[in-house]
């Protein structure tokens, strides 16, 4: 097991203890966030007949909800930076509940767009980001495992919400179901209650190192600097002169200096590319199966197989990523899983008959789970737990575009060629390209990080010769975590 690294959090995360209930809370929050918009589709046929609208108009409800959930990322990040995870998740849960209850009394489709789509979407955004952030605060050594377990919430909730929704619909109709779903979403508040704030309290802050750590809670100071937003000029370590004013003000809320972070940019570009081809294959799996002549129930069963494999793959990937061989080079593992996804899709048209599609579903489920489990772990690995909340907000709002455009573009491809295989080829090629891009860029990034690390160590040794300082545990294992923070920690000590 690698030696405990520094985290720039200013404390050593528990890696257990209350961390596991936090993982369970994150499991619930993430499950609701990802599974809820998809599970709502069960009501669409009925609502479509009730309001006499076309299917695409009703499908907008889900799309708006998903879009708002992603676009609300930065807002969520700002609030988490300011108030911590717990209040944001609880208010998110209340927002979702109010949105669904209001929607149950809706009299027009526009009201549904606003209530379910926008308000509900924002509520889910307030659930997603804080859950991811707080895992980084509670775990370090076992963080990939914790991430994998938490992300497993999505397929588990999808598998349970779908039959529950059907049952609610048969018993209560769509209005009653929306009303009760509002109640169910209140459970997000339970998840929020579990998100006990952690970090340096004011007492231990005073005791530690005589350095002005700053605010009482570390998650408050998550803007540009790990510990001292007030102390040194936040940008002194990075750029010599920065126009003060609006940029610095924005930076207090959300860390847009991340756009200068090399690892962050690599992650962003690779992921944007990947998401174009990520969701379309799932959306079209059942129609493709029906197109090949498979009956409706078997086609739906393919999706169930995918979900079950996904459920197992996510914690499994977390465990594998936690091992000491993979953890230091976790970016390679992520690029491998993205590329593996691409290969799966490229081989899909070769699958003939039901058995071939079942095998494809199994491999695809595995690939999908791997990517999802590592998706946020790699971001945490690149930018560090401190800046993660801002990073995830920025990433989700930019990813909003490919996530929403992916399935319609896939659909356009299917319509244009009249065959599903070209869509699979395109998606496979896109993901393979993204995987290769990530692999090459991360290789380059790791090399640069090693170089920077060596320079930093040399600098530190030179400084230690001059001044006796208390350096809290400067052993590094996950070098990529420190990245551009290195010069600034040196700056702090000076």
């Amino acid at each position: 097991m690698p030696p405990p690294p520094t985290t720039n959090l200013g404390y050593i995360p528990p890696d257990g203890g209350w961390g596991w209930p936090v993982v369970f809370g994150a499991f619930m929050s993430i499950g609701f966030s990802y599974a809820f918009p998809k599970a709502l589709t069960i009501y669409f046929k009925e609502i479509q007949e009730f309001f006499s609208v076309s299917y695409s108009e009703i499908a907008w409800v889900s799309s708006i909800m998903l879009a708002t959930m992603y676009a609300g990322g930065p807002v969520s990040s700002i609030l988490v930076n300011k108030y911590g995870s717990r209040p944001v998740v609880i208010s998110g849960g209340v927002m979702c509940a109010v949105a669904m209850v209001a929607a149950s009394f809706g009299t027009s489709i526009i009201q549904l767009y606003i209530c379910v789509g926008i308000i509900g979407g924002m509520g889910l955004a307030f659930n997603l980001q804080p859950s991811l952030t707080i895992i980084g605060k509670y775990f370090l050594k076992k963080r990939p495992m914790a991430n994998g377990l938490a992300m497993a919430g999505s397929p588990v909730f999808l598998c349970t919400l779908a039959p529950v929704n059907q049952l609610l619909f048969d018993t209560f109709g769509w209005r009653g179901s929306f009303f009760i779903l509002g109640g169910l979403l209140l459970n997000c508040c339970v998840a929020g209650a579990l998100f006990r704030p952690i970090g340096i309290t004011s007492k231990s802050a005073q005791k530690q190192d005589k350095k002005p750590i700053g605010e009482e809670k570390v998650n408050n100071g998550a803007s540009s600097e790990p510990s001292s937003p007030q102390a040194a000029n936040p940008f002194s370590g990075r750029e010599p002169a920065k126009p003060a004013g609006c940029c610095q003000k924005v930076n207090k809320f959300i860390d847009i200096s991340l756009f200068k972070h090399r690892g962050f940019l690599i992650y962003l570009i690779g992921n944007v590319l990947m998401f174009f081809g990520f969701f379309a294959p799932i959306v079209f799996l059942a129609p493709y199966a029906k197109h090949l002549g498979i009956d409706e129930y078997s086609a739906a069963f393919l999706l169930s197989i995918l979900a079950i494999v996904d459920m197992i793959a996510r914690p499994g990937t977390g465990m594998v990523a936690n091992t000491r061989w993979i953890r230091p080079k976790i970016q390679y593992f992520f690029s491998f899983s993205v590329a593996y996804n691409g290969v799966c899709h490229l081989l899909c048209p070769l699958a003939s008959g039901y058995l071939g599609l079942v095998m494809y579903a199994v491999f695809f489920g595995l690939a999908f789970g791997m990517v999802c489990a590592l998706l946020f772990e790699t971001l945490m690995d690149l930018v560090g737990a401190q800046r993660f909340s801002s990073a995830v907000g920025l990433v989700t709002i930019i990813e909003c575009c490919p996530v929403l455009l992916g399935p319609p573009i896939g659909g356009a491809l299917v319509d244009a060629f009249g065959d599903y295989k070209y869509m699979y080829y395109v998606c496979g090629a896109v993901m393979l390209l993204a995987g290769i891009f990530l692999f090459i860029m991360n290789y380059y990034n790791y090399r640069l990080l090693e170089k920077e690390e060596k320079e930093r160590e040399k600098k530190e040794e030179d400084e230690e010769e001059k001044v006796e300082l208390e350096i809290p545990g400067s052993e590094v294992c996950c070098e990529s975590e420190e990245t551009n923070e290195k010069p600034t920690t040196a700056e702090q000590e000076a």
Partner: protein
Amino acid sequence: MLPTRIPSFVIAALLATLSASHFTTGKFSGNIPTDSPIENEEIRNNTSESIMNTTIKNIIIKGYTNPWIKENLELTHQTILDLSCTLTSLPDLPASVTGYWKKDGKEIPGSQTVIEKKDERFHFQNKQFRFPITDSSHLGNYSCVFDLRPEAEARFIVTVPHTEGREKPLISYEGDAIVMVCKAHSHLPNGWTWYRLNGTERNIINATLNPEKFTTAVEKGKKASLKIMGLTQEDSGIFWCSAIYDIGSSEGRIHLKVLSYTVPLKPFLAIAVEVLILVSLILIYEHHTKKKQTITENGKDSEHTEKLTSDGSNGLRDGTARHRNV
């Protein structure tokens, strides 16, 4: 069968005049269709039956199948059925066999025919013996039977296109509105009726008489919808939509349940209470453990600072170690 032709022609004429009068008095609540069906009926009245379309269907019986082969025939207009069966792939076929027709399980008298074996198969078709379909009494199961030991049979199920209602109950709430949709299978019906059954009596739902409560609409002829506003408990029950064709009608069934608002409120309150309890439990537990922690912390204050400084010195030691190594 000549004797049966004349009565059916008369029946057709009667039916035509009856349905014509129905359309003109506007009894049905659906959209009144164009005049062409009425015109066609009247033309048929005046000309001979040979103008009617002939529907030709054949079933091939290959050996003894279990169950017997069935073919569904969905008809919308008056027609003459020219049905035939071909029997093959049976061992020890005799040179000739007797065949007859059954309607709804009962042998049609006079339909016995002797069929000669030709090319190792028996083709049972009688051009003089065809089935006119002019009204709903002619619909049913027509079976051709080969009189062998055991019998070989094939069945033609002649119906009007079925209408799809809704299998699962439709749930709505008091004061709300609901839209019920019925879909006709494949062909355009002449009209639609909505009614409820009161025992055996039909209460036809008349939208023109009650426009604030009922609205009917027909979309492209194939989908009929009934919108009921201001639902009350009395509206709970089974609704029937009937698609009307020249030769009969087919029904779809929709079960409506009207609930009061308190029904979903109970589970909602139950969940809300559960959430409140869980949240309070978690927060109380947290408060409790924090209290314990601060008590022990205050006791171990000095130890705490020592630990921190030792941590620092650890780092320092490591730093110096590195320094030494270099």
